């Protein structure tokens, strides 16, 4: 097998992944983002300096996959937990990894106030518009008319309210230093997301405020579609509500 040589290497999983099988459904965007974070930590050589906070939701078991120190937080409270540890270990890199239910529903208060204080952490926010772990219920980010198990006739904005674009709110907070919305549905998007994660970690050296990355991702099992259909549906229906791109870079609003 002379093809397996260093020169021919095009991809290998990050050495900071434990090798445990991801618990995510095939086709889910989580798996991609989870590995990107560890690639960045590995490339920056900051394994011993990094503390991750896992939420309640599909990524609750983050610590099974990551060979770094991880704290599992109560539902919605990841950024408060991150605040606590960052304040006593200000030299460390601290990130949270949260879904839309965790970050934008039950944890809205903690999210807003952490970013408003400008805690010097990275927040990685996976928005798939649905509750994956509990089986496809409506999320704060579920778009109008979208069907979920708790909006079976589609999200009726008259009675269920509108989808929450929390990232746009975060961008306007003085404490937020870097705010962007990315996706992982194709390889170009994956590369851009990785660059964004890298910037969020690099920013922690500057001590200038919170870095916040939303990743719009599909949940094919929640949408009851094939992975391909789910990504296409996301592009056509989610992106108009959640346009990709930087909202704030180096503390300067872009939109």
């Amino acid at each position, binding site marked *: 097998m002379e093809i397996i040589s260093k020169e021919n290497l095009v991809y290998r999983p990050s050495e900071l992944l434990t090798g445990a099988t991801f618990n995510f459904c095939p086709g889910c965007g989580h798996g991609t983002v989870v590995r990107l974070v560890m690639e960045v930590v590995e490339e920056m050589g900051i394994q011993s300096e*990094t503390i991750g906070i896992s939420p309640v939701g599909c990524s*609750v078991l983050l*610590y099974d996959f990551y060979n770094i*120190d991880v*704290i599992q937080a109560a539902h919605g409270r990841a950024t408060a937990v991150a605040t*606590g540890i960052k*304040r006593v270990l200000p030299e460390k890199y601290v990130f949270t990894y949260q879904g839309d239910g965790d970050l934008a529903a039950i944890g809205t208060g*903690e999210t807003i106030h952490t970013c408003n204080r400008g805690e010097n952490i990275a927040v990685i926010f996976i928005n798939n518009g649905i509750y994956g772990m509990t089986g496809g219920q409506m999320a704060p980010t579920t778009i109008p008319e979208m069907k979920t198990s708790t909006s079976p006739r589609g999200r009726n904005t008259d009675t269920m309210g509108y989808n929450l674009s929390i990232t746009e709110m975060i961008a306007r907070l003085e404490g937020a230093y870097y705010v962007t919305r990315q996706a992982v549905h194709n390889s170009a998007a994956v590369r851009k997301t990785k660059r964004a994660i890298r910037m969020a970690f690099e920013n922690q050296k500057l001590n200038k405020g919170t870095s916040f990355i939303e990743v719009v991702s599909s949940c094919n099992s929640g949408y009851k579609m094939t992975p391909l259909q789910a990504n296409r549906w996301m592009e056509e229906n989610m992106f108009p509500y959640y346009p990709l791109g930087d909202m704030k870079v180096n503390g300067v609003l872009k939109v």
Partner: protein
Amino acid sequence: MKELRLMKGNEAIAEAAIRAGADAYFGYPITPQSEILEYLADQNPVETTGMVVLQAESEVAAINMVYGAASAGRRVMTSSSSPGISLMTEGISYLAGAELPCVIVNVARGGPGLGTIQPSQADYFQSTRGGGHGDYRLLVLAPASVQEMADFVALGFDLAFKYRNPVLILSDGVIGQMMEKVELPEFRPRRKENESWATTGKTPGRERNIITSLNLDACIHEQHNIKLQAKYRRMEEEETRCEAILCDDAEYIAVAYGASARISRKAVEQAREQGIRAGLFRPVTLFPFPARELKTAAKNAKGLLSVEMSAGQMIEDVRLAVDCRIPVKHFGRYGGVVHAPGEVLEAIKTFQV
């Protein structure tokens, strides 16, 4: 000589946190304990000892900040009053489940609901039975003076780290708001050593550390619970603290903690002046409850009076301690009303008829 000051209980506990080498305090204002955060904000210890003080956006956030900082193996404290403690109970359950050390202060006020800002001891059940979901206990210290407010902070941190368990200092509006002479404890340095279990960044020499209260496998989680229970039994063996005053020959013993113990002590003095052989038994730890010590103190007693600013909560532990062999009555004003020594004296006298 140590430094003598006239301080409120709340101020003493705040000053003691700085002196105990605390690394961080996270809190949210609520009467009657806001002086703790105010005092710390005024002292600004980040410039002296390096202790972080942060006003959180809610009690929910505050206790989760405690969870984060405690995960680093640091000395962390928060404080609140009854309704705020209720908000924190989710986080406290996580702290207990993840076996994180911390000190939580409850300067209790009257409930239920928003209740009143006046003193109360109606959080006894919540404090001694865990408070939140799941089978867990907090180690509960009940100060009865401003001096003990100061002294129990360092003790609380030591016990919290000894058992890797949250310690609750259950105070009340009387002890928090009153001023007394206090001999401030010596300064001790903040912790330098890293706990082996703490999430401080995985270094090459060790396995990664995980702070979690989750086990998807029930059998593994049962083992975790068994381990927790063994820890609580060890606390019951080793950590009971109490004070027995004039109990040896006492026919009637008032059992009381915190402010009620102070008030009952006066009632006992008045009873003795009237020729009634009364005594006071004061649990200092509420969990573990000093049951054996109470049983011994009450060996000659004809009646026990559980004096508490509640409708009668500790009375259950008092009855269990004496196996219901001695008549046990409850006396207490509650809902924010503080009983006077004369009322307690009258209640003691009811055993005589």
